[in-house]
């Protein structure tokens, strides 16, 4: 399964005068786990947003899973996001007044129809079977992040994006989350692209690229 899932050529994103992402050529294979490292403002989040269909490139070519993201309409982008991509946020971004299950069901609702049983199963799978009816405020950071993961994978995405998923977590929680992701990936066979500051976290990936000032400066394969 070494077919190409993501291909970008000369991918650029400018915010006014500021060039957040300089022309970037990147290929990611199906099922690969790619870590992106770089300090703040290096353009890694910009890249992630472009791949996740949250933002549009200023210039260049970007193709994910055979879909040319530049030509998609707004609603086409929305469809791409709900059917193809799952995103894990650093801030979790759970809806505060909905319970864990309801937060997951919301993702199901936007995708197709809500299914509570399936949402429960998904939460049990991330080890939160006992906290189904709790609101995000009543959960710890690690638990919140696991809800966020459950939500991200509920619609069986082919691409899972993580924007510093462990940025706010302590060492123990980080480990739990990373192990969970690894397990899920083994089951579901999705591609992971993860932005991180943490070398330890990046090491979970098959390959790590380093961005600096919008330019890819280094690429490391696992075991290098």
């Amino acid at each position: 399964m070494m077919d190409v899932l993501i291909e970008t050529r000369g991918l650029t994103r400018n915010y006014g005068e500021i060039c957040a992402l300089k022309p970037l050529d990147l290929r990611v294979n199906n099922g690969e786990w790619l870590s992106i490292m770089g300090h703040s403002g290096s353009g890694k989040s910009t890249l992630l947003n472009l791949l996740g269909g949250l933002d549009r490139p200023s210039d260049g070519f970007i193709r994910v899973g055979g879909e040319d993201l530049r030509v998609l309409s707004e609603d086409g982008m929305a469809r791409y996001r709900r059917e193809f991509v799952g995103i894990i946020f650093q801030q979790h971004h759970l809806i505060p007044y909905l319970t864990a299950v309801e937060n997951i069901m919301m993702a199901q609702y936007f995708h197709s129809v809500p299914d509570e049983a399936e949402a429960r199963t998904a939460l049990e799978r991330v080890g939160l079977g006992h906290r189904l009816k709790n609101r995000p405020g009543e959960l710890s950071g690690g638990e919140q992040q696991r809800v966020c993961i459950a939500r991200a994978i509920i619609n069986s995405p082919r691409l899972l994006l993580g924007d510093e998923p462990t940025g706010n977590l302590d060492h123990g929680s980080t480990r739990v989350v990373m192990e969970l992701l690894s397990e899920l990936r083994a089951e579901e066979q999705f591609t992971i692209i993860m932005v991180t500051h943490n070398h330890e976290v990046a090491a979970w990936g098959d390959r790590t690229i380093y961005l600096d000032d919008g330019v890819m400066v280094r690429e490391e394969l696992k075991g290098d």
Partner: protein
Amino acid sequence: MLISIIMGASVATAFLGLAGELSFRIAMEMRNYGANILVEPMAAEQGGFLSDADLPKIKTVFWRYNITGFAPYLFGVIDISAGTKREKSVVTGTWFARLLTSEGEDESIQGVKVIAPWWGLSGTWPEAVNEAIIGAALAKRLGVVSGEEVTTTKERRTQIFRVVGIVTTGGYEEEQLFAPLATVQSLLGAPGRISRVLVSALTVPMDDFGRRDPAGMSKEEYEKWYCTAYVTSVAKNVEEVMSGSRAKPIWQIASAEGSLLTKLNRLMILLALLALTAAATAVSTSLMASMTERSPEIALMKAIGADSLQIIIVLLGEILVISSVGGLIGYLCGEQLAGFVSRSVFDASLQPSLWLLPTAVVSAMTVAMAGSIMPLRKALAIEPVQGLKG
């Protein structure tokens, strides 16, 4: 937001509820003024009189079906005495409730009882020729009560009346003695004469066409004018059958009855609309703020794949639920408000009108929807990346 919807809906409900009630109340109050056409002799100053033989003709005129009632009056100053007290006073000869038969027409009852239903009468209406009712003020001065007799004198003609009722009107009528027309005619030595007729007619509101001078109209226009129940055309109608008469619309009332009501209704509806518009603006403003506040949430929805339609459905659904609740509460508040106003202004309780409930809820929803157009556009314009950062 809920508050503004409640406010808007309740004020609108109150106004609309009052509008219906008001026009009814005011129509009633207006009716209390009774007649809207005054028929007088053309040369009243020179002592002209109308003839009571012409009276039945009033029910044969073109607009006879619009004439709800009329009463003839003959006034005269007489000496009146009861027991030891003596006074100079006015006697009015009139019809109380007289069965009138005009040729070719159904019988009808005409007289004061018909055109002045607001008269408060303790006792009965006079039936026999020598029965009379007396104004409350006059009765007090003379110390007369129902069942007693009063003696009236005019130029040596004397007539004794048995008082069968005391009348309270709140007006000059309380200073008079009311007796059957024929009896007063003979007392005053004026057989067959009457001094004025008051006619109560249902009329259509005066408009520009109705105000025009009939003399300057073309034939077609004149026909149209004659064919419309303007108070002027009804008056002209009456004038034609009462020989030597001049019929004047009693303008204040005639125009008040017609146009004031429409104006008032229009004002009420306008106010209701204004209240709703204000509510819509308030809703819009508060929703705008709420959209800003909730922009991370909306951005998240977008990030996990909601398209514009889904966002609209979610937000509008929320708004509609809130607004229908607001409409319901607003309806209840508005009912109370209208009831309160009705009680304090008209001293009458208000019938709760159920048709206002759907009106209130629907208008609350409409207002909320109208107010949510701009906020929704704002919500749709939220960029997921920007929204999630903030």
